[in-house]
């Protein structure tokens, strides 16, 4: 490739990615050159500003036409833009959390915090925009490897080490499965370009090949289940969430999960939507796989919600809750209605707001005693009524009570499942039944906050970064709960991701 062709590409469509890379590079250099005794917390602010600029740049790119550069390995389409906005928002909030993260033993590697998070964010962004298995895999690994380090950043903590190790091993296995699935696809179609694969896959009318393709589908899906922490690859979630520093936990539960869903949608829909199959729908492998996806979605919701009932540790509880929420989102995917991507996007938006809010308050409550037991929340209402009410909003939203974004998001997914013909009644029933089960543990936190007396009476002051998160998330949760039209209007610009398969 000559310099000339290189320069001819419309590099402008990668502006957000370049901004993130640039910020990460600058930060790593600054960290290297900074004297050891200097406070590195401001680095998180710089990273935050970088992400904010990238966010604005992405918004600026919304009117841009669907473009692909670098031999169609990088695509900027409506899907990529919409999901990148979620990722960047999540990244920015994680950095704010990181700024105010004060573990009891102190944090030696605060600089790494910022730029590793940026690298992970970059990986996630590349994943949402990739048009080729190779770039997709590179993005995925960038995200994964940065996350492995982030999880183990508290070097002296036993829990963190255990978490990091578990995360690496589980991640390795799932990556292997994903790659294995990809290898079948490459073997069947002879190309790594996702769209060419889709074209080639349509020609696979031979039953033998279809069998292998179905196997590839399952391998891919199961492998990717690791990133979105759904059954069968959900076991790592509670341990890792508990051991990782809170900002990283929040990052994993929102950004990493959003990226995971982006890959699942991008890869599985593009490749398999039009591939012939032997199952219940012979014209589409994806549709014939619906039952399996639905089964996994149901299992995920059940496992997540049931096991969450028994948790005393808030981080583990939120981990199981995040598994459950991934299950709800999978319902949206399994239903395959025409509101699928819209409803999943909205769900992830609501999830971002309510989860970050909850994690911000959790971080404040657990840092002061280095414990995340649920009893830390006892008497929060007496200590700080405003914070208690904010936490109340997030929990109500997580539980899916009307008036919050969580309800509208669930309602969207739910409608999608019932809109199709025939409707997915069983799946919808499982979703709603597990939602009721989830009331038990979410309201269990309410019992602590509002009904139980406080163990300590010292008033709570929220540092600036956390205050910002709590305010933004609480307002957002309520706003999108009462006037979801705002989000729909915004989503309208993407025209229901019509350019997804072009």
């Amino acid at each position, binding site marked *: 490739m000559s310099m000339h062709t290189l320069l001819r590409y419309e590099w402008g469509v990668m502006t957000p990615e370049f901004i993130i890379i640039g910020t990460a590079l600058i930060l790593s250099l600054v960290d290297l050159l900074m004297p050891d005794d200097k406070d590195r917390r401001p680095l998180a602010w710089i990273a935050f500003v970088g992400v904010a600029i990238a966010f604005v740049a992405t918004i600026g790119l919304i009117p841009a036409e669907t473009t692909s550069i670098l031999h169609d390995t990088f695509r900027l389409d409506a899907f990529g833009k919409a999901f990148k906005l979620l990722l960047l928002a999540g990244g920015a909030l994680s950095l704010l959390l990181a700024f105010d993260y004060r573990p009891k033993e102190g944090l030696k590697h605060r600089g790494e915090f910022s730029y590793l998070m940026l690298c992970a964010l970059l990986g996630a962004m590349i994943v949402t925009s990739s048009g080729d298995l190779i770039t997709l895999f590179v993005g995925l690994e960038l995200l994964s490897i940065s996350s492995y380090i982030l999880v183990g950043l508290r070097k002296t903590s036993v829990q963190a080490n255990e978490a990091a190790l578990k995360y690496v091993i589980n991640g390795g296995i799932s990556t292997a499965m994903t790659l294995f699935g990809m290898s079948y696809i490459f073997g069947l179609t002879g190309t790594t370009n996702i769209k060419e694969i889709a074209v080639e896959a349509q020609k696979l009318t031979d039953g033998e090949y279809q069998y292998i393709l179905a196997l590839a589908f399952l391998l891919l899906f199961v492998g990717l289940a690791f990133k979105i922490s759904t059954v069968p690859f959900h076991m790592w979630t509670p341990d890792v969430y508990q051991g990782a520093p809170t900002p990283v936990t929040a990052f994993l539960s929102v950004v990493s999960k959003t990226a995971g869903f982006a890959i699942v949608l991008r890869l599985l829909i593009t490749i398999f939507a039009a591939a012939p199959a032997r199952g219940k729908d012979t014209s589409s492998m994806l549709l014939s796989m619906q039952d399996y996806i639905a089964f996994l979605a149901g299992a995920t919701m059940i496992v997540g919600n049931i096991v969450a009932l028994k948790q005393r540790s808030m981080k583990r509880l939120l981990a199981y809750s995040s598994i459950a929420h991934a299950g709800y989102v999978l319902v949206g995917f399994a239903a395959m209605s*025409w509101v699928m991507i819209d409803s999943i996007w909205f769900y992830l938006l609501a999830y971002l707001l309510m989860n970050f809010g909850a994690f911000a308050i959790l971080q404040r409550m657990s840092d002061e005693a280095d414990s995340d037991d649920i009893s830390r929340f006892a008497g929060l209402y007496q200590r700080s009524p405003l914070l208690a009410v904010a936490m109340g909003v997030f929990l109500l939203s997580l539980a899916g009570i009307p008036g919050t974004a969580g309800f509208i998001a669930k309602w969207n997914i739910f409608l999608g499942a019932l809109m199709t013909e025939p409707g997915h009644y069983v799946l919808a029933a499982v979703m709603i039944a597990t939602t009721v089960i989830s009331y*038990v543990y979410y309201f269990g936190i*309410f019992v602590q906050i509002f*009904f139980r007396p406080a163990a300590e009476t010292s008033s709570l002051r929220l540092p600036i970064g956390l205050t910002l998160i709590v305010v933004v998330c609480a307002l957002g949760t309520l706003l999108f709960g009462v006037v979801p039209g705002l989000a729909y209007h915004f989503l*309208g610009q993407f025209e229901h991701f019509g350019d997804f398969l072009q």
Partner: protein
Amino acid sequence: MNGPYFLSLLVFSPLLGILLLAFTPKTQERTMKWLGFLSTLPSLILSLFAFFQYLRGYRLEHLAEKRDWIRFADFPFLTESTFVVRYELNIDGLSLVMIVLASLLAALAAIASIHIKKEWKGYFMLFLLLEIGMLGVFAAGNMVLFFIFLEVTLVAMFFLIGKWGGFARERAAYSYLLYNGVGSAILLIVIAVLFARAGTSNMELLKEMLHNPAARAQLIAPIPDGLRLSLFIALLIAFGIKLPIVPFHRWILRVHVQAPPAVVMLHAGVLLKIGAYGLIRFGIGLFPDQFRDFSFLIAILGIVNLLYGAFLAFIQDDFKMVLAYSSVSHMGIVLIGLGALNEAGMQGAIFQTVSHGFISALLFLLVGILYERTNTTELDRLGGLAKAMPLTAGSLLAGAMASLGLPGMSGFVSEFTAFFGLFQTAPIVAAIGTLGIIMTAVYLLRAVLNMTFGASKSGAAQALDMSVTEAVPVFVLLALIIMVGVYPRILAEPLQAAIKMMMNGLGA
């Protein structure tokens, strides 16, 4: 009155109180109690105003509000109004009666809340939130809005029970949450299926789409008979939990006993009625054919409720438990009336919802007054109230008389009409049901006579009779009970049109 904001104002006026309370200092107990009470008044005044205007011939259709709110799926191949949930409030005679009931009991319960001992700020904020939820449920013009208001009551009640309730309050709060959560969840499935397949949740449009063959073409996806049947059964279960119908009644026992009496006034007086209201509005309104097929079963369920509740009420030692089972038993009469499937039965059912609303509120008001002084509601430890607290004892007796259906009081009118209806369609079942009326008399007299007469027991000996503040709501309720009993037309008239319309839907 013509203002299109009338209903919104009615439903959301307690919000003003919530805001004012938020800025009141925590320690101002008196101010907060006054604020709590005063904030219930605007809704009460507005609803009474609407009620009397309606009696004078005002058309309630003029009050309907409709504003754009959410459009869930904006696709080029869908019409403008598909998957739209509007902010729609409208009322008819039935909902107006329920709204008057709710706002009235809310005001009285706010007075009864003087017995609340702690954290008045949070209490009254939640109390007013509960009122918004109750009023909204009855004013909602579409199912999604109905559901949203219903969930508001759920959350508010959870906190009211769990924080200000008795000894086992947290358990009671949980049991309330879970039972009602399941009920709401089932209801949500029904709403979502209808919304997903018809593209609307507006009651009128849904009725049209389900029954008018011409409008059926507008459906997004078909709603075949089998699906309708499942939806109807789901509705029956959902509202059966809220009403409650017998196998689903355990939660209301805990709530009746543990929740603060002022909250139970609203719970027994209004919240249980949402079950009946929902059955009438959605069960009969949307699925009249299925309702007709099930009417006999519903009547049987009613009899079971009536007898089972009455029998268990007889063997309770705690007056609160007696009243809890009495609620179960009296809700049976609502079912009996609905199951009769004729105009008299329908009227009896609705009369019973209102009448039981007044009576149970009165009895729990008195329970609150008693408990405040004696710290117990156990029948064995109460006795001789007639000497120490003649007014309280007298009101208690009057309330019990109303509850067992003494002629001249509201209980008689409603029970008589409901049974009159059932005797026309299923005389044998009705004959068995009348046993329940006798049993009601037995258990109520046993409980009340135990408490009022006999030797003074430790608890009640030196108790003071009720104060003026406590007496006001008691006498208001007694007056209403007698008014409905003597002059039932005050209820019959506003309900007439609504009942006519439902009977038309049922094809009877």
